[in-house]
């Protein structure tokens, strides 16, 4: 099993959710986060003075998936979240040791 963490543009979150549902992904966690990469920050205007804001709002999606789905999920996120412009985000894939469904006690792929 893998844990896929995708940092994406917030306005693309719904598109990504739909694309993943189409693949049969039945659960995910969305968090509003702030960060920056190559896009750097932006400026904001307060009473006639511009301020540089380093951290931009982003959406963080966390999805636990079975190994055989990893490639499709990553492709789907890239397609749905991509705009071709700087700041589209990143996807991290990490090994996942165990998953437990609290209600039933099921573990591993059964709990996904």
């Amino acid at each position, binding site marked *: 099993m893998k844990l896929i963490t995708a940092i994406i543009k917030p306005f693309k979150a719904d598109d990504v959710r739909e694309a993943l549902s189409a693949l049969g992904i039945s659960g995910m966690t969305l968090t509003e986060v702030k960060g920056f990469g190559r896009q750097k920050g932006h400026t*904001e*205007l*307060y*009473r*006639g*003075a*511009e*301020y*540089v*804001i*380093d951290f931009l709002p982003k959406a963080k999606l966390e999805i636990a998936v079975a190994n055989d789905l990893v490639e499709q999920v990553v492709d789907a996120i890239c397609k749905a979240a991509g705009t071709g412009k700087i700041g589209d985000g990143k996807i991290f894939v990490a090994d996942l040791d165990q998953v437990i469904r609290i209600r039933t006690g099921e573990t591993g792929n059964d709990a996904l």
Partner: protein
Amino acid sequence: MRTRKTACHFFIALAAMLLPSLALAQDDLNGANTAWILTSTALVLFMTLPGLSLFYGGLVRTKNVLSVLMQCFSIAVVISILWLLVGYSIAFGPSESAYWGGLSRALFAGIDLDSMSGDIPETVFAAFQMTFAIITPALIVGAFVERIKFSAMLLFCTLWTLFVYFPVANWVWGGGWLGQMGLIDFAGGTVVHVTAGVAALVTAMILGPRKGFLSAATLPHNLTMSFTGAAMLWVGWFGFNAGSALAADGAAGMALFVTHISASVGALTWIAIEWLKYGKPSGLGAITGMVAGLATITPASGSVGPAGALLVGLSGGVICYYATAYLKQGLKIDDSLDVFPVHGVGGIVGTFLAGILVSADLGIFSGNGLAEGATIGSQVGVQVTGIIATGVYTALLTVVLLKVVAALTGGLRVDEEQEQQGLDISDHDEKGYSM
């Protein structure tokens, strides 16, 4: 506070202020006027609670929001009591002195149900004036937010109102020397905005900047709150300016209308400047321009006409905009919420312009007319004297009082760790938001 179309009106008003119970005991109570001043009293208190509190509260960071609300609220509480104790007497008592009203009205001595001030009950006049005494020190809050100790804040604002606001209110409105000179200050250009603005500037310089000043670290946390508060200020200002006619009459109607126009022009001016300069108009800019327009029209609201109000709002908007930028970016003074460049500068510009636009010889831009014997030149001279006198007196007293308060409270500022943590926790042991 009072329009003085003629010398005759002026002396009647002066006599009314000096001898409220004697000269006016025979006046019949005017129900309409009384009702309007009662309403205005509520409107002006509403400017501080919650208008100004929300406006300021939104402009600070999450960790300091409650401290700002507490500062404004506790000032209202303490100054109300101080007003009863000695404030009303010092500002509007019947003494012969041209510098203060004496202490004969302390604790409202001699004021009862039947006491009159003009054709309204003296209690109504006193309550209306009290709301001005509340908002003036509350305006200064914007200069020292996010770093002053609560104890130092409360002591300073109390002493400042006692030694600066009450006497200056007497000089201009209570029969004192500036009023006798014929200074035009209908609703508080000098008494409220110059004093609060200058005190804010001095306090900001002595206190020093916040950690992270001029970086994104100190940006507003909730402009929705600031918009709400600013809108309340606009509405409340109708009581501030139109109430200062002390009657439900044409002067009140004109004051209300010119106030509204100046607020609109001030806001539009900031929208236009930011749009041209940065490509986008900001919401905070719009509401700040509105406050600048309101502060600027305040002294002039009893003397200018509707077309004159356009000029007042435009001047206030443009000058306050560049003053704000210069003070922060140029001089690097952390008058955190721009009290001096908006209120102080607005008050100065408005008091100055009132001396010109009061004239009845300016065509469509004419005002209500100069006092008999006065010329634009002589009136402007009086206006400048009023601005300098109130400004210099405020600056000197503010420095002295800050030194005294610092000695009594062991320093004006919280320490660096508390500033980092935020005043909500360090001064009040609570948080504005639990989310």
